C-alpha cells in the first residue's frame, strides 16, 4: 500500500527546499537580475552546512554558514552582471560551474563522515491534532518547513504592500524611473541578488541537514536548483504560485520513490516493482513535468500578457535609451 499521508508529509518537507530557492530567485529576478546559478549555490550551501555540522557539531551554525557561503557566491554574479554588464545567462552558468566545482573540492571526503547532529524535528502541539492536515503539515517536521509556511505570505506581502517591495518592483520594471526618483538601482540589485543567494544557501543546507541528510556531491541537489528556476517562470514571479509548485514537486519526488516499493498498485501488479528499470521513466518524471509546467505557464503568459519583470536580464546604465 502507498501511504499518501507520508508522501504528502515528506513532500512538504522536500518542497520547502524548492520553495526557499524559488522565492530567492523571485526576489533576484524581481529586481531585474536573473541568476541561473541556483543549483551551484544550493550545492555550496549544502556542502557548507554539512561540513560545519561535521566539524563543530552545530547544525544551526551550519545553516548560517551555508547562507553566507551561497550569498558570497551570488555576489560574484552580482558584480559581473550588474557592474560589468555581462550576459546574465552566461554569468549564471559560470556561478553554477564554480558552485559545483568548489563544493566538490571542499566537500571531498565529506560523504564518509560519521553521524552528525541534524536539525531537530518538531510536532506542533494543537495543530497536529487536525485530521489529515495535522499529520501532513504539523507533525515531525524540521523547523525549516515551518519557516517555509511563513515565508510565502511574508514574501508576497513584502513585494506588494511595503515600501522596499515597491522599490524592488520599480527597479525590475523600470530602473530608469526608479533611479530618477532617487532609488539606488545598483544597491538594490546587489541586495536582492544576495538575498537570492542566501535563500538558495538555506535551501541547500536544509537538504543536507534535514530533508535528505548527508553529502552526495552533485547528487545532493540533483537538478533541484534548475527545477526551482523553472518554478519561478511557471509562478510568474508570484510567491503563492511558487509555493504551490514547490510542494507539488516535493510530493512528486517522494511519490516516485514510494511507487517502486509495493508489489501491487491500485490492485494491479506494480510494473515498477517487477521491472525495476521502468523506474528510470519515473526518474524522468519531475524533469518532464518541469517542461510541461513551463509550457502551460508560457501559454498562460501569452494569453494574459503577463511576463517577466520588464528589465529582467538587462543591465542598467544611467542615461542610456530604453528601460
Amino acid at each position, binding site marked *: 500500500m502507498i501511504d499518501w499521508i507520508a508522501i504528502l508529509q515528506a513532500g512538504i518537507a522536500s518542497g520547502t527546499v524548492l520553495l526557499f530557492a524559488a522565492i530567492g530567485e523571485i526576489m533576484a529576478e524581481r529586481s531585474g537580475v536573473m541568476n541561473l546559478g541556483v543549483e551551484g549555490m544550493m550545492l555550496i550551501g549544502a556542502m557548507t552546512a554539512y561540513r560545519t555540522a561535521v566539524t563543530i557539531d552545530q547544525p544551526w551554525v551550519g545553516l548560517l554558514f551555508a547562507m553566507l557561503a551561497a550569498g558570497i557566491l551570488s555576489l560574484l554574479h552580482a558584480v559581473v552582471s550588474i557592474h560589468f554588464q555581462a550576459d546574465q545567462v552566461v554569468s549564471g552558468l559560470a556561478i553554477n*560551474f564554480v558552485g559545483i566545482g568548489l563544493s566538490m573540492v571542499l566537500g571531498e571526503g565529506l560523504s564518509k563522515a560519521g553521524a552528525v547532529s541534524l536539525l531537530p524535528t518538531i510536532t506542533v502541539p494543537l495543530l497536529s491534532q487536525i485530521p489529515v492536515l495535522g499529520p501532513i503539515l504539523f507533525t515531525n517536521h524540521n523547523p525549516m518547513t515551518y519557516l517555509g509556511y511563513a515565508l510565502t505570505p511574508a514574501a508576497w506581502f513584502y513585494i506588494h504592500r511595503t515600501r522596499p517591495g515597491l522599490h524592488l518592483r520599480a527597479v525590475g520594471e523600470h530602473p530608469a524611473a526608479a533611479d530618477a526618483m532617487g532609488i539606488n538601482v545598483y544597491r538594490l540589485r546587489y541586495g536582492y541578488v544576495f538575498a537570492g543567494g542566501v535563500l538558495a544557501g538555506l535551501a541547500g543546507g536544509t537538504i543536507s541537514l534535514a530533508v535528505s541528510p548527508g553529502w552526495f556531491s552533485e547528487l545532493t541537489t540533483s537538478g533541484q536548483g534548475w527545477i526551482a528556476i523553472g518554478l519561478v517562470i511557471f509562478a510568474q514571479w508570484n510567491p503563492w504560485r511558487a509555493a504551490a509548485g514547490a510542494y507539488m514537486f516535493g510530493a512528486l519526488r517522494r511519490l516516485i520513490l514510494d511507487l517502486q516499493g509495493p508489489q501491487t498498485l491500485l490492485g494491479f501488479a506494480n510494473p515498477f516493482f517487477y521491472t525495476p528499470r521502468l523506474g528510470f521513466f519515473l526518474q524522468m518524471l519531475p524533469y518532464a513535468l518541469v517542461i510541461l509546467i513551463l509550457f502551460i505557464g508560457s501559454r498562460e503568459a501569452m494569453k494574459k500578457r503577463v511576463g517577466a519583470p520588464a528589465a529582467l536580464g538587462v543591465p542598467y546604465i544611467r542615461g542610456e535609451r530604453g528601460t
Partner: protein
Amino acid sequence: MTGQEMSANPVGGQGWQFPFSISIEPRLTVPKWLPALISVGSLGVAFVIGGIVLAVAGGNPLAIYAHLIRAAFGDIGVFNDTLVKASPLMLVGLACALAFRMKLWNIGAEGQFFLGAWGASAVVLAPILPRDTPAILMIPTMMLAGVACGALWGLIPGFLKAKFNVNEIITTLMMNYIAVSWVLFWVFGEWSESGFQMSPMFPRNAWLPRLTDYAAQIPQFAGLTLHAGILFGLIVSVVVWFITSRSRWGYEIRLIGDNKEAARYAGVDIARNTMLLMMVSGGIAGLAGMAEIAGVVHRLQGAISNNYGFTGIIIAWLAKLNPFAVILVSVLFGGLIQAGREIQPSGVPRMLQGIILFCVIAGDVLLRYRIQITRR
C-alpha cells in the same frame, strides 16, 4: 544623448577620496587583437584564483598545476589522450558556439550527446544493421543515427521555444536529465550485457579508425588511441565558420542574435530558424556522442561523458564563439580533463572550468570599456 556613464562608485557618497581617479569610458572601437588577449589574460587570472582556492583547501597549487601540464602535454602518449578527450569537446563546443550566435541558450548539449550515443548504439545493438555490416556502411549509418537523435533532442526544446516561447534554458537542461535516464533504461535492460550496467562491446566494424590501427604501417602509431572523431571536429569547425560568416543563413542567425526585432522587420522567420538551429546544434552534439561511443568507449554505458556537454558551453564562450578558436580551447580543456582524472580532490577540473568561465565573462568588460587610472 550619445553618452553613457558608468560611475566607478555608483553607491555614491563623498568623504574619503581615492588617490587615483579611475575613468571608465565606453570603448568605441575594439582592436582586433584585444579579444584574444583578454581570453588569454582571463585564463591566467583564472589559474591564479584557482591556485589560491587550492592553497586554501590545503593543496599545493604549483604542484597540482605542474602535474596538470605534465599529465596533459608531457609526452606523446598523454598528449594522445588529451586529444582523445578534446575530440568530443570540439564538437560540443561548436554546437554551443553556433546556437549562442543566435542567443539561443542550448544548455542541452550533454543530453544531445547522450542521445547521439544512444542512436549510434542502436544501429549496432537494436540492431538496425546486421553485426557484420562492413564498416564503410556501418560507420556512416551510426553517424547518421547519432546526428538524427541529437537533432531530435534539440528540436523538442527548439519547437517549444519557437511555437510557445518556452524558455529554452530550462527545457534543454531538463532534457539532459531525461536523456541520461533514457540511456540508463536501455543499458540496464534491453541492451544490458548479461545483467551488467553496460551494453556488449561493439564489433570492430563499428569502431572508428584509430591511429594505433595503422601501427603495422607506421610503427610510431602503436598505442595511440586518437580516432577519426577529431577529424569530425576539424571538418565541422570549417562548416560552422562557413555558416556563420559566409552564408545567408549565418547572417540571419547573427541578425536574430543581435536584434530579434530587426530580424523580424527584415522578414527573417525566427520560429523556423530557431527550430533549424536547435536541430543543427543538437545534431553536432549528437555526432560528438556517436564519435565517443564508436571511437573510445565501443559500447553504450551510463558513464560516457565527462561532463562534455557543459564543458562545451565554457569552451564556446572562452573561444568567443569563433569556431577555430573552439578547436584550440578544446585541446586545452581536453588536457584539463585528462590530467584532472588522477587529481585529488576530484572536483578540481570542474572548479577550474567554472573559474575560467567566470574570469572570461568578467574580462569582457574590458571589451566594452576603456579603463584609465590617473593620479588625482
